[in-house]
C-alpha cells in the first residue's frame, strides 16, 4: 500500500517536469541500476541499490535466496535428508543448531576480511558467476559437485557435528557466512605463503592449510567424542584449480 503511494507520487512528480528532463532522469536511474553493483565491487563502495532505496531490498534478497535454494534443489541428485535439513536450518542463518558447539561466536583470525554481510550476495558473501556457480572475493568457486550435489551443501556438513561418524569430523563454529569468510581468509593467506600456512600438491588437487589465532571450531565425529571435542585452530581447504572441493577445521 505504502509502496503504491510512493510509486504514484513518483509518477506525479515526473509528470510535473518537462519531458526532456524526465528522459534524462530515467536514463540516469537506469545507469545507476547497472553501475551500482560494479562500483561497489570494484571500489569497495557501499552504494545502496535502487531496490533498497524504494524499500524493496528485503524482497530482492529473499528472491535471491529462493533462487539459490531452487538451484541447489535442481543440482542435487543424492541429497539426503540430513543435508536438506541443514539447508533449511541455514536459511535463517540465525538459528542455533542442536549439535553446534557451546560457544556462540565464530572467531576467525581476521574478521575484517570480507566479514561484512552483503544482502545482495549468496550467503552474504558469494557472487553468482554462472549457472549454479558462485565466486568468493578471493576467487574460490563453489559449484555443482560432491555427493550432496553442490559444494556449498557439502561444506555445510561441517557446521554440525556427526557424532556417529567414524574418525574425525571437523566442525566449524558459526554460520555459513562466517565459514565462507574464514575459508577465504585461510585460502588467501595460504596462497600468499604467509606464516602458519601450508600448501600441498596432490594428484590434481591442492591442499591449503592455515592456522588461526583463536579456535574456529572443534573436533567432532567418533574421534572427537572420545577426545571430548577439543577446539581446533586450523582450517584445511582442498581445491582443484579454483574450484573448492571441501574445507573443514582440523
Amino acid at each position, binding site marked *: 500500500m505504502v509502496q503504491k503511494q510512493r510509486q504514484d507520487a513518483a509518477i506525479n512528480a515526473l509528470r510535473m517536469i518537462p519531458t526532456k528532463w524526465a528522459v534524462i532522469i530515467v536514463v540516469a536511474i537506469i545507469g545507476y541500476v547497472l553501475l551500482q553493483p560494479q562500483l561497489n565491487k570494484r571500489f569497495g563502495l557501499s552504494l545502496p541499490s535502487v531496490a533498497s532505496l524504494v524499500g524493496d531490498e528485503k524482497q530482492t534478497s529473499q528472491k535471491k535466496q529462493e533462487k539459490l535454494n531452487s538451484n541447489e534443489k535442481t543440482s542435487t541428485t543424492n541429497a539426503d535428508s540430513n543435508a536438506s535439513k541443514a539447508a533449511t536450518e541455514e536459511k535463517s542463518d540465525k538459528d542455533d543448531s542442536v549439535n553446534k558447539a557451546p560457544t556462540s561466536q565464530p572467531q576467525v583470525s581476521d574478521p575484517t576480511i570480507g566479514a561484512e554481510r552483503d544482502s545482495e550476495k549468496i550467503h552474504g558473501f558469494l557472487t553468482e558467476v554462472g549457472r549454479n556457480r558462485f565466486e568468493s572475493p578471493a576467487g574460490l568457486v563453489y559449484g*555443482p559437485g560432491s*555427493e550432496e*550435489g553442490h559444494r556449498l551443501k557439502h561444506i555445510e556438513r561441517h557446521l554440525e557435528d556427526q557424532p556417529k561418524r567414524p*574418525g574425525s569430523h571437523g566442525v566449524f563454529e558459526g554460520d555459513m557466512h562466517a565459514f565462507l569468510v574464514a575459508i577465504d581468509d585461510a585460502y588467501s593467506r595460504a596462497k600468499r605463503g604467509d606464516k602458519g600456512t601450508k600448501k600441498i600438491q596432490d594428484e*590434481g588437487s591442492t*591442499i591449503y592449510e592455515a592456522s588461526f589465532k583463536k579456535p574456529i571450531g572443534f573436533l567432532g565425529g567418533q574421534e572427537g567424542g572420545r577426545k571430548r571435542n577439543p577446539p581446533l585452530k586450523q582450517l584445511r581447504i582442498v581445491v*582443484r584449480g579454483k574450484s573448492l572441493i*571441501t574445507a573443514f577445521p582440523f
Partner: protein
Amino acid sequence: MTSQDSKIIYVESCPICGDGLCRIRICISNQKVTGFILCDECEAMWTDPLMQERVPTNVDETDPQCPSCSQSIWGKNMHWANIGEICLLGWFDHVQMVDE
C-alpha cells in the same frame, strides 16, 4: 530399506585429507560392475582396497571421473557399495561398518 542401507561401510580414514572416509564406490556400466575406493571428503581415489594405487584426477575436472567408465563419480551409474557387492568384489576383509 535394509539394515545395510543405514550403515557406513569404509576401508579407513583418508590418509590425504584426514577427515574423509575411504569408501567403496560401485560403477555399473555396460553390464559391468567395478569398484574403486573414494574419499567422501576430498575425493581422492584408489583402484584397490589396499590403497596402493591412486587414480589421477585432472585439475580441470569439477567432478573426478570413474576409472572404469570415465563418467562423473557422482553420476547416476554410481553408488556406495553394499555388503553383497563388496563380497562379490572380494573386498569384505578390508572394510569396517558403522551405523549411519
